[in-house]
């Protein structure tokens, strides 16, 4: 599995999600820290296109061989895309955490809420204090 990293061009949430912002569309995934804690992901339950996700609420589940974890939405909005590859290759979450392992894309209800997310430095400081 790839080495620990937290790309500078992403924003982060304390529940260990990353966000890639593109105007009012955001892509969500889980961070290196989260996939490392979970272990090899073997199954994902993700929402459908058109579903609403609420900031701070669970929008799905990731399962490893030994555990199940809720995925928390860092921001709220309407799901516009779901990563189809995850169903057949859930290990993308571990192996391509910030690229091929993306989970859903969301049209943000409130794009300004992104200002409340952490940058890579602040997130790593947060991790160091855990």
């Amino acid at each position: 599995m790839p080495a620990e990293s937290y790309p500078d061009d992403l924003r982060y949430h304390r529940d260990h999600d990353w966000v890639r912002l593109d105007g009012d569309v955001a892509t969500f995934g889980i961070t290196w820290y989260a996939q490392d804690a979970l272990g090899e992901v073997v199954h994902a339950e993700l929402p459908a296109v058109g579903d609403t996700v609420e900031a701070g609420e669970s929008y799905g589940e990731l399962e490893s061989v030994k555990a199940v974890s809720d995925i928390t939405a860092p921001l709220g909005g309407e799901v516009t895309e779901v990563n189809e590859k995850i169903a057949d290759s859930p290990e993308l979450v571990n192996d391509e955490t910030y690229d091929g392992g993306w989970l859903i894309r969301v049209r943000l209800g409130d794009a300004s809420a992104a200002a409340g997310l952490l940058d890579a430095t602040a997130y790593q400081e947060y991790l160091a204090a855990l």
Partner: protein
Amino acid sequence: MRDGLKRTPLHARNVELGARMIDFGGWDMPVFYEGIGDEHRAVRTSAGVFDVSHMGQLAFTGPDAHDVLQHALSGDVDRIAPGRAQYSLLTNEGGGIVDDLIVYRRGDDDYLLVVNAANTGAVHEHLLVDVAGRDLALVDESDATGMLALQGPAAIGVLDALRGDGVAPLSGVERFGMTMAEIAGVPCLVVRTGYTGEDGVEIMAPADGIATVFDAILADDRVRPCGLGARDTLRLEVCYPLHGNDISPDTNAIEAGLGWACALDTGFRGSDVLRATKETGPQRRLVPFRVTDRAVPRQGFALFAGEREVGIVTSGTMSPSLDQGIGLAYIEGDAAAVGTVLQLDVRGRRREVEVAKKPLYPPEKDT
């Protein structure tokens, strides 16, 4: 000791190898080194070595050892020739399972019971009742003994490359046969058995020598270190029960499908209850199932035939070899028949499963 957890003689090695450690029944054990899926596949295709030093070893020696064990264990001790081992159940008065174990006959009056780590104390206490006033010694050798499992198609080849001069090839040892062999200069008791469904051995050595054996085995490129996570996915694919999940003092050996390990005519403790169950037929049976949808079954999930609850999952996982959810469950009556389609409740959602035949791996070829 960190957090009061017990450590095996291989603890330092496990940590050096970067294992993810967990509390397993009070022991600090590796759940994986690099990844459960990779380790599982290594055992199915080449070889894996597991630290199982946490397991218990109870020695029984003396003229009464045979009779005491014949009454306490479900298997027929008469069928264990010196130099052989047998899978057996330690049963209670109700025909329930205090532990499942392997009994090694080291000599005429010399037996070794290898028991699950979490049950070593319970087994010892259970047997103290039986040995009181009898002509035998019961000694707990667990702390003095280290143990490894070396499993996979390459396992015997790996071991043969390490055996001392004058040790006969281990490929000549039959399944459940055992032998004393010097491995990397350390005296070992080797038995050809395992918990993975692959060829291989379990190796016992003095606690202060087991790390040398482990290092020598790992020096062979064909072997990877494997943790308890892979041990569980491997055994579940071949439908071996896990005490604490699938079997317990409250589960009947006939219901658990372990009648084959019960020599009912030897009159062992609880055999009358088991004979009655066999005659009337068990009301529920421990059977394997495959998930047809994508979902991971977990212990405690309920199984339904329409709206009727008919069963409960006792073990479940995502099978690395089959790329499908699999599990074991107690299912009542006709719903336990092979081919029955049932619904699994996965945290409020229903997913389709099918009752299957043992073993789940290898999968049956289409004829």
